[in-house]
């Protein structure tokens, strides 16, 4: 089935390159949902996610000549979306840093501890009782990751991408990318610790 989709995509790409603009519609309609899921997980809100989806398909259209016919269009546009989303995240961080003054620097800077933001946001264990709070806490923890870490965990965990594929988006090498994935999980783990420990204590009956 995946082969057939890829073959059908290749035909649509050829037709688009031949000047049939509407053939591109098939590609947009077929891959929008996948790109949207990636974009939402990267950006954390619907509005930005939809922007990323539209911009990604526009960029893919403009670069279609560079698309190697033997590659998979779905994978290709997914990568364009990941690249664009990481740029948007970096831009967002820069804008926030500028607004908050010179003390806050860019991503991956040694002086910055993104987890501190999560800890500040952490509600007391009593307030973290249900899955909605869990999701909120995780959302804050994801937002506190650097753009590279967020991209790495989204692509690795949710979309099952290989390290090489993630490394291509991060413009990094395999070892550094593995480290980025590890750092992302570690930071999420620390941020979620109060909630997890509370649940474990409750499960073991030692709370109190």
């Amino acid at each position: 089935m995946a082969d057939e989709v890829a073959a059908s995509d290749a035909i649509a790409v050829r037709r688009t390159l031949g000047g049939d603009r509407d053939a591109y519609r098939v590609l947009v309609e077929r891959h929008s949902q996948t790109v949207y899921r990636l974009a939402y997980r990267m950006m954390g809100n619907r509005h930005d996610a939809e922007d990323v989806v539209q911009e990604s398909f526009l960029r893919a259209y403009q670069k279609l000549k560079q698309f190697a016919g033997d590659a998979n269009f779905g994978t290709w546009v997914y990568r364009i979306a990941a690249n664009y989303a990481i740029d948007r995240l970096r831009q967002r961080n820069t804008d926030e840093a500028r607004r908050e003054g010179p003390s806050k620097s860019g991503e991956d800077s040694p002086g910055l501890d993104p987890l501190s933001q999560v800890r500040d946001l952490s509600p007391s264990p009593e307030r973290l009782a249900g899955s909605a709070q869990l999701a909120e806490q995780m959302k804050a923890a994801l937002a506190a990751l650097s753009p590279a870490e967020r991209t790495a965990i989204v692509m690795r965990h949710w979309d099952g991408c290989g390290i090489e594929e993630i490394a291509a988006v991060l413009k990094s090498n395999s070892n550094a990318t593995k480290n980025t994935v590890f750092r992302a999980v570690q930071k999420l783990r620390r941020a979620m610790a109060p909630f997890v420990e509370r649940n474990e204590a409750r499960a073991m009956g030692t709370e109190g």
Partner: protein
Amino acid sequence: MKHRTEEELIGYRFGEVNERMEIAAHLEECAECREELARIETVFGALDAMPVPDPGEEYGRRVWQRIAPRLGRRRARWWESQFAPQRLLALGGVVALLILAFVAGRWTKPRIPVRDEADAAKVRERVLVVAVGEHLGRTEMVLMELENAPAGKGQKPINISLTQRRAEDLVEENRLYRQTALNEGDQAMASTLDELERVLLDIANSPEELTPAAFETIRKRIEAQGLLFKVRVVKQGLDERKSNPDAKPAENKSRGTERNKV
């Protein structure tokens, strides 16, 4: 016993460590590392619980509507775009329509100049009604061929190349009629033609040989959207307009209701 590091356990979870067998053996024996791995796993559980709002089934269509005006024309190799068979066919159709409209306009009311314009508009509409009716008839045939095609046996591929060629020709025609329907303010017809266009494009852009499963997907889509039914409803409306030219175009309530039912 030397415990495994957090990094090793996360790598193990993702299947990325070289010492996979050794770590698996260690986990068999070491309850503490198993617990540590379970704690790491809770992070992934929490990630999986994060919802992604469903943008809706029509999301792809909405994306297309937003970006289509911004795409601009791709510079095709000119001979491909200008002399593509379907374009020539459609162009021929439009030229024939214009000539017919012109001749019919001259023929019907040559001696009452003040009414010429209104009459010509009527004639144009009648020609459109006839032409779109024929187009829908041809489209109906293609859809029926697909719906009634025998199911494939096992994994034997199904060749749809003939239907595909017809779908390619119809796409171009369909686009012109949709645009005309929009210009004439016939939203109902434009909307059905839009739905048809998407399915025709799907057929035209499919590989010539489909597995039974892929073929079934296209067939189910035609069924799920009730396209054959919609085509017949619009066709029936056009037939009524042919026999009663003063009838309003298809924005009536009953048609809207029929469409919603499908």
